[in-house]
C-alpha cells in the first residue's frame, strides 16, 4: 500500500516536472499565457475590491460575458463524448488514445467554467453556502444547484478516467476494465446532462420568453457538438504539428463528419426558433427583434449576430463540400464554426434574454475593459491547463515517460520533441 502511494506520487511528480520542460517556443507560449492570466487576476482583484460595478452589467442586464463564456464552455466540455462514443460504443480503435486528449480538453473546459461562475458571484467568499451538507443547497428546486452537481461530477469523472488510463500506461499495465469502463458510459450520459441542465437554467424562467423555449436544450446540444469537436480538431492538429505524436488523418475526418452533421442540425434548430418568433410576431418577439434587427434605435447585438449567422453558414457550406477533406479548409471551417457558435450562444443567447426588461425597458449591455480582461485571463488559464495536460499526456502515451525509466538521471530527456 505504502509503495503504491509512493509510486503514484513519483508518477505525479515526474509528470509535473515534464510540464516545465521544453524549448524556447514552449516557454514563450507558457510565459505569454501566464502574463495574460496575471492581467486577468489583476482585473479580478479590482472587481473584488470595487464590486461588479466594474463590469457592464446592470439590474436590467444582470448576466453578461461571464455567463456567456460559461455557457459556451459547458458545451465544449460536453463535446468530449463525441470522441468517446465512436471508440467505446462503435469500437473505432483508431481513435482510442485520442479520447484522452478529448477528455483532457473537457477537464480544462470545466475548470474554466468553474472560474467563470466564480467571477460572476457577488460574494465569492460565501461559496461554501453551495456545498451540500455544509451550506444550504436548494436541490432539486434550483437548476443552478443541479449545475453545481453535474459540473463537478463531470470534472471528477473525466479526471478519474484520464488519470487512471494514463497511470496504467505509465506503469505499462493493462487497465482493469471494471475500474473505468462503467465510468466511461456514465460519462456519456453525464456529458449530455451537463449541457441540458445548463440549457434548463434559461429554459425554466417563465418570465423570460426569449429563453422559455423548448428548443433551447436541443440547440445547446447541437451547437456544443459542433463547436466542441471543432476545437478538438484544431487541438489535434496542434499536437500533430508540435509533438511527434501521430494523429491519423482518419481521426480528423471522423470528427469532421460529426461537426458536419451537428452544424446542419444546429442551423436547422436556429431556423425553427427564428420562424416561431417572427412568423407568430406577438409581443414576445421583442428580444429576437432586438437581437437580429435592433429595437427602437438600439442595436448593439445586430452586427454580432449576423457575423455569427454568416460564419455558421459559410462553415456549414465548407463542411458539406468535399473541399473540407483537405485539412486547411477543415481548419477554416472549424475556426468559423467556433467563433459563430461562441457569439450565437454566448452573447446572442444570454444578453437578448434581458432586453427588453420584464417591464419593457431597453438597457443595452457592453462588456467593460475590466470584464474583458477577466475573461481573457480565464481563457489563458484554460489554455495553460490544457497545454500542461498535453505536455504530460503525450510522452506517457508514446511510452517515453514510464515507470521503467524512473531511475534514469535525466528522466525527461528525449521526450521533449518538436517537429521542425
Amino acid at each position: 500500500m505504502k509503495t503504491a502511494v509512493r509510486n503514484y506520487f513519483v508518477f505525479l511528480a515526474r509528470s509535473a516536472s515534464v510540464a516545465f520542460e521544453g524549448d524556447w517556443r514552449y516557454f514563450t507560449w507558457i510565459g505569454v499565457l501566464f502574463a495574460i492570466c496575471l492581467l486577468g487576476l489583476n482585473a479580478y482583484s479590482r472587481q473584488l475590491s470595487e464590486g461588479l460595478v466594474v463590469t457592464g452589467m446592470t439590474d436590467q442586464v444582470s448576466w453578461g460575458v461571464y455567463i456567456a463564456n460559461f455557457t459556451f464552455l459547458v458545451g465544449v466540455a460536453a463535446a468530449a463524448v463525441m470522441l468517446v462514443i465512436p471508440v467505446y460504443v462503435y469500437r473505432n480503435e483508431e481513435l482510442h488514445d485520442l479520447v484522452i486528449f478529448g477528455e483532457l480538453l473537457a477537464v480544462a473546459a470545466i475548470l474554466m467554467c468553474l472560474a467563470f461562475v466564480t467571477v460572476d458571484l457577488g460574494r465569492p467568499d460565501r461559496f461554501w453556502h453551495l456545498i451540500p451538507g455544509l451550506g444550504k443547497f436548494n436541490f432539486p428546486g434550483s437548476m443552478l444547484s443541479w449545475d453545481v452537481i453535474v459540473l463537478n461530477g463531470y470534472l471528477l469523472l473525466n479526471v478519474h478516467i484520464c488519470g487512471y488510463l494514463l497511470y496504467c500506461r505509465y506503469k505499462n499495465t493493462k487497465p482493469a476494465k471494471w475500474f473505468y469502463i462503467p465510468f466511461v458510459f456514465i460519462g456519456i450520459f453525464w456529458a449530455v446532462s451537463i449541457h441540458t441542465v445548463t440549457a434548463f437554467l434559461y429554459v425554466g424562467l417563465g418570465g423570460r420568453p426569449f429563453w422559455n423555449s423548448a428548443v433551447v436544450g436541443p440547440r445547446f446540444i447541437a451547437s456544443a457538438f459542433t463547436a466542441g469537436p471543432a476545437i478538438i480538431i484544431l487541438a489535434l492538429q496542434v499536437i500533430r504539428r508540435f509533438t511527434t505524436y501521430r494523429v491519423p488523418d482518419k481521426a480528423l475526418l471522423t470528427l469532421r463528419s460529426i461537426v458536419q452533421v451537428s452544424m446542419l442540425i444546429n442551423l436547422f434548430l436556429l431556423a425553427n426558433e427564428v420562424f416561431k418568433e417572427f412568423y407568430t410576431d406577438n409581443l414576445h418577439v421583442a428580444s429576437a427583434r432586438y437581437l437580429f434587427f435592433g429595437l427602437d434605435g438600439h442595436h448593439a447585438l445586430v452586427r454580432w449576430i449576423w457575423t455569427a449567422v454568416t460564419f455558421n453558414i459559410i462553415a456549414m457550406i465548407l463542411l458539406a463540400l468535399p473541399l473540407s477533406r483537405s485539412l486547411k479548409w477543415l481548419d477554416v471551417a472549424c475556426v468559423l464554426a467556433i467563433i459563430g457558435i461562441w457569439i450565437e450562444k454566448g452573447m446572442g443567447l444570454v444578453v437578448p434574454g434581458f432586453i427588453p426588461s420584464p417591464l419593457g425597458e431597453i438597457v443595452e449591455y457592453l462588456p467593460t475593459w475590466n470584464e474583458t480582461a477577466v475573461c481573457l485571463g480565464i481563457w489563458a488559464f484554460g489554455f495553460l491547463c490544457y497545454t500542461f495536460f498535453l505536455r504530460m499526456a503525450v510522452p506517457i502515451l508514446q511510452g517515453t515517460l514510464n515507470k521503467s525509466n524512473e531511475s534514469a538521471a535525466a528522466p525527461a530527456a528525449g521526450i521533449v520533441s518538436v517537429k521542425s
Partner: protein
Amino acid sequence: MTTSPPDGAAPPSEPRSMSRRSFLRGSTVMAAGVAAMAAGLAPLRKLSDYGSVDEFLQMHYSELKPEQMKVILERMEREVQRQYGVRPHVRDFKPMNGVEFVYALNLTRCTGCRKCVHACVAENNQSRDPGLEYIRVLKMPNGTFDMEKGDHNYAPESVPEPGFFYMPVQCHQCKNPPCVKVCPVKATWQEPDGITVIDYNWCIGCRYCEAACPYFARRFNFTEPSIPSEKLNPNMSYLGNRPRHKGVMEKCHFCIQRTRAGRYPACLEVCPTGARKFGNILDPDSEVSYILKHKRVFVLKEEVGTLPRFFYYFDV
C-alpha cells in the same frame, strides 16, 4: 526529431550539478512569477472590510437559535454605529399568526408623483449613490398594457399628464415565486405572512433570482451602498431595512419592520391620493378584503403563474 531539454547543455554524467542549476533557474522563475502575481493582486489592498470571521461563519437565518440571533443583532448594531455613527435598533420581527399581507393599488387615483419611490428609499436605507429604488413607476399611454410602450424616465413639470395613466411596480410577493425557486442556496424564501425575504448574509450574489423575476422587482448591489449618516433610518430589521453590503440582492419586503409591528408600509403612508391599500387578506373585514371582493382587480402578467399578492384595480 528531438531537441534537447532546456538545460540539456549539461552532460548527463553530472546529474547533481544539472539539478542544482535547474533548481536555481527554476527558483528564479518562480520568484519572478510570485512577484508578478503579487503585483497583479495589488488592487486587493483597497478591499474594504469584507466582514469578520463571525460573519463568514454565520449560519442560514432558519438555523439561528434565538440566543445566536441576539448576538448577531448586537454585532450588527455595533457595525452600523461604527460605519454611520448612529446607534440603530436592529430587531428580528417575526410573522404574526393569522396574517397574510396583500397590497392593492388603485390605478385611477395614482398620479405618478413618485412620492412612494422616495419614501421607500428613505425608510429602507437604500443606497443613494449609486441610487437604488424598489419601486418603478411606469407612465403608460391610455389604451394599452404593453409595458414596452411605458415610459420609465418621465420628468414633466407636473403630473398627471392627460392621456396617460401611471403604474407603480414593486415586488409582488408572489405565492408561487420564481425567485425563491431558482435560488441555489435558499437565501430568499417566502414567510408565513406572504412576504418574500432575503437573508443578506447568506446571498452569494449569483443574480439568478433577478433573471427569474417577471416584474423587475429585485436589485443588486453592484458596489458598496452609500447612505449619508443623517439620512439613516435607525429602526431596522434583520430581514428588512438594515444596511446591505455590496454583492448581495435586495428588494421590497412590504416594510417588514413596520408592517409586522402593526403599521402601514412607508409607500402607502406617503401616498397623497390614497391610491395604495394594504392589509390582511385573512381578515374578512379588512380594507383589502373589501377591495378584492368588490372591485374588478387584476394582477400583472397573470399568465406567468406567479400568483402575486399585489393587485391593481380601476375605480371607474
